[in-house]
């Protein structure tokens, strides 16, 4: 289903939960609504479902305005955060509910339930009650129940929040696979960026009721359009005075501009490990932390603190070691503008080499 939203607004009393949100979603895409808790993601989802009424703005499915359509008539599957399974019904009963309400013939209901039980790998659990299932199984029942009446749009509210970390990983790929196979347009809400990046075709970043940016995970990582997006996606440290770093002296031309530097923008090593030594400067290792597959290195360059990762294959560093630091790029921003600045010395040198 093609979904379009124009100028969506929602207030809860004094609290402006959703501010003028516009977007459109192509058929068959899997979209992640990502943002901090309380940012308005769930409100947007609930308005799409018809569980909440927008104060202003239009919601269009297939180009038709559905604002005045009750949730019962929207043809949407909804997976709730805590699944909201009917506690007094078995797995079968839960899945069949929507079909019984829609007065499908008995034989077709039986067929469809069997099909979904098979699809979600719940065979053998049909007669169980929700309290007899594990978290992952409950989630799959909720998924099957939402899919049973063949909806054209699937909405998932924090679908993995209530599941422990290990199974969450499994379920994520399972869900991705399932949605790919069914080709159903889906929108899910999450506050976990790894989840959004891993699962979604496109991410919409929502903060304080605003849609900050919409794009593929790679686009958003590579080209953040607002400081919020830049700091929310990936890891980063904010540097107050970027112009003090070697290669970024030009930043002095924009007073009040701060820099955001990701660990992967920073390269460290002994002098012989660099090809363009002139672009590096000397820093000092402040602190080391073993992260299982690599070292997290905190360092100090002048008065600036930076964070980076270092491979376990390389020579082991110690706090207090002097080390060469190369900052490849920084994401600069001030109150009006934001842009990415590459290390000038690195570029100059490459130009000369060519």
């Amino acid at each position, binding site marked *: 289903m093609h979904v379009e939203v124009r100028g969506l607004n929602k207030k809860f009393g004094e609290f402006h939960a959703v501010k003028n949100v516009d977007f459109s979603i192509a058929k068959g895409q899997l979209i992640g609504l990502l943002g901090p808790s309380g940012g308005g993601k769930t409100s947007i989802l609930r308005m799409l*479902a018809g*569980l909440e009424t927008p104060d202003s703005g239009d919601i269009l499915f297939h180009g038709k305005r559905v604002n005045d359509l*009750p*949730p*019962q*008539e929207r043809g*949407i*599957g*909804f997976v*709730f955060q*805590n699944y*909201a*399974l*009917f*506690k*007094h019904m078995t797995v079968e009963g839960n899945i069949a*509910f*929507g079909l019984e*309400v*829609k007065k499908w013939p008995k034989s077709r209901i039986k067929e469809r339930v069997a099909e979904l039980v098979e699809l979600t790998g719940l065979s053998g659990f049909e007669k169980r009650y929700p309290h007899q299932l594990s978290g992952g199984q409950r989630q799959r029942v909720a998924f099957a*129940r*939402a899919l*049973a*009446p063949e909806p054209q749009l699937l909405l998932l509210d924090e679908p993995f929040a209530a599941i422990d970390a290990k199974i969450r990983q499994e379920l994520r790929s399972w869900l991705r696979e399932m949605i790919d196979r069914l080709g159903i347009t889906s929108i899910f809400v999450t506050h976990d960026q790894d989840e959004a990046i891993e699962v979604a075709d496109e991410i919409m970043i929502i903060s304080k009721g605003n849609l900050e940016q919409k794009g593929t995970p790679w686009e958003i990582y590579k080209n953040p359009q607002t400081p919020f997006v830049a700091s929310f996606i990936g890891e980063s440290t904010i540097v107050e005075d970027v112009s003090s770093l070697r290669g970024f002296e030009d930043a002095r031309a924009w007073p009040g501009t701060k820099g955001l530097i990701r660990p992967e923008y920073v390269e460290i090593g002994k002098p012989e490990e660099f090809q363009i030594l002139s672009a590096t400067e000397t820093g000092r290792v402040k602190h080391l932390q073993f992260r299982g597959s690599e070292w997290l290195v905190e360092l100090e360059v002048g008065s600036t603190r930076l964070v980076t990762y270092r491979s376990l294959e390389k020579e082991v560093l110690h706090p207090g070691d002097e080390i060469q630091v190369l900052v490849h790029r920084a994401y600069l921003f001030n109150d009006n503008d934001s842009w990415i600045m590459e290390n000038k010395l690195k570029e100059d040198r490459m130009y000369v080499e060519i």
Partner: protein
Amino acid sequence: MRRLWIGLTFLVFALLLGAPVVRIAMGAWDEGWRGFANGLTRPEAVHALAMTGLIVAAVTVINTFFGVIFSMYLVRAAWLGPRLKKLLNSIVDLPFAVSPVIGGLMIVLLLGPDSALGGLLGAAGIKIVYALPGMILATLFVTFPLVIREVMPVLQEIGTQQEEAASMLGAYGWTTFRRVTWPQIRWSVVYGVVLTVARSLGEFGAVLVVSGNILFKTQTATTLVYQDVENFSLTSANAVALVLAAGSVALLLLMEWAKSRQKHV
């Protein structure tokens, strides 16, 4: 030491609960089966028990129906402001705080023959006070919180998500209530109903004030027992009291059963 405490507790309970029941049973039988049967088959006893039965039936039906509706609105209705909800919520407990006699008096003051409203209704030929409607009203007042207090916490606990899930699956209000909400609150409703029956069976103060205790007209089982005691016909009083006590014990057992079912869902 521990044995002493346990023994003492048993003794207190035996004196408080056991002895009166045994005494009533013995009293009912002190003239043999004949006395017991006479006490119950007197025309005034038959009438009083019928009155009590009528009141219990009417109160239970009304109280259950409106109790469930009231709880639904108090928990679910978004259009009631939180302040109004709080106010209504405390009003529900009013009958717990107010003595039943005062409750009965309020009805007499509001709807009695000397009040404006009562006079108006009286002129139209409708008698409320010193008649069955007033007695039902008084019992309703006393039992009003019972169903609501049982159902509301359960409604709050199950939350709105399952109902929302049902609406996303295409179910409208009535279907959602019948298939999703009701199965989860029914044992609480049963529990509330049992409490209501027990309470209205034994109600005395409010009914006494409102009914005027008129023989063959507005006398209930409890007010009859009261009158029998006043008239020193203890055997008859004990016979009726024993029937009421047996009813209460049966309800108690039913209540335990409902409670165990409540936990299952």
